[in-house]
């Protein structure tokens, strides 16, 4: 299941708060990790941010002092993307490859 894959990445990474698998073409949140504390409005905003920042690329980031948002676009299906909300202290060198691998797996499954 897609949610299981999201849960695994989130649970394995200290600092990962939310993961959302989204469709950029419709700007719709498809699945999130089970324990996301975010409201639907916040997730919709996150999806809109992904659509804006992934306009020309495969990866994007928007961060403040408090949060880091990482956005990954699927190579298999350009409409699929993963939106991640992380704490600044997250180990991004392990998190980003893990999130990319997760997206590759779930984007292939959902096609």
């Amino acid at each position, binding site marked *: 299941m897609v949610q299981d894959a999201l849960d695994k990445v989130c649970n394995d990474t200290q600092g990962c708060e939310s993961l959302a698998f989204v469709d950029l073409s419709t700007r719709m949140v498809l699945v999130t990790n089970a324990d996301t504390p975010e409201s639907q409005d916040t997730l919709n*905003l996150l999806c*809109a*941010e992904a659509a*804006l*920042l*992934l*306009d*020309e*690329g*495969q*990866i*994007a*980031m*928007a*961060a*403040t*002092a408090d949060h*880091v948002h*990482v956005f990954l676009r699927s190579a298999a299906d350009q409409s699929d993307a993963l939106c991640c909300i992380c704490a*600044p*202290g*997250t*180990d*991004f*060198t392990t*998190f*980003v*490859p893990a999130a990319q691998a997760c997206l590759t797996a779930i984007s292939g499954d959902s096609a």
Partner: protein
Amino acid sequence: MSDDPQLSGKIEALTQDAVFEDGAMVLGPAGAPETTQAILRSIDMTMLPRDMVFAVGTSFVTLAVSGKRVRHVADTSPDLMAEGLVGQPVNVDETDAVQSLATVLRALFAAEGVLTVKRQTASTALDAGTAGLGQQDLSKVLGPPPVAVTGSVSTLMGDLYEVLGGYAQIADGAITPVKGDADLAAALEALGPKWAAVSQAHMRLRGTAADSIVTLDGVLPGGSLAHFVSLKGAQVVMATAEGSLPEVALAWARAAR
């Protein structure tokens, strides 16, 4: 032969209290407008062929100067990433070389520290004609001196030294390249309209944050990532190598603490 105003200027310069460090004359803090003026003056006072080594710490640019004109770049330190410019003549009509020289000088001016100049006998024979760039030409090319990148932004870029390809300053919506090769500098400068549109849309979504970084992919050549940074009042756009987002995220977390 010098006319009276030139002669009096030279005498004044020779009699003022110049400060020397290791045989190099101290011109002032890098990036300060008066330091840039001192650089231009020192070139304007150089008639005989000389290699003038302008340095800030370990960063340096050696300009071959004669007859009050910069004839070519004789050498640069590796961190300025301008090896391709060395030995190329710089003339007003050679736009690419002149812009590359301006980018290298801006990078040196933006470094943190004191800017010094050391004069050496020219390593190659130099023209005595009207080729090259004089004080007025250089002043036009350089434009207003850039604000030195200091504090947290400097720390952030220091952390990213291994993946940083170049950067530019953002002021009043204009992007001014500071460091990087000519292609990257042009690409960074061209990001102005794109960033204006994205930043406005992003602000509508997220509001404003005092300190923030926005990373875009697919907008720079060679797979480089563009990072628009606003940190402790300074604004820059940095270019880092493809695949370097994890390093940037980690460096950002440290810098924005």
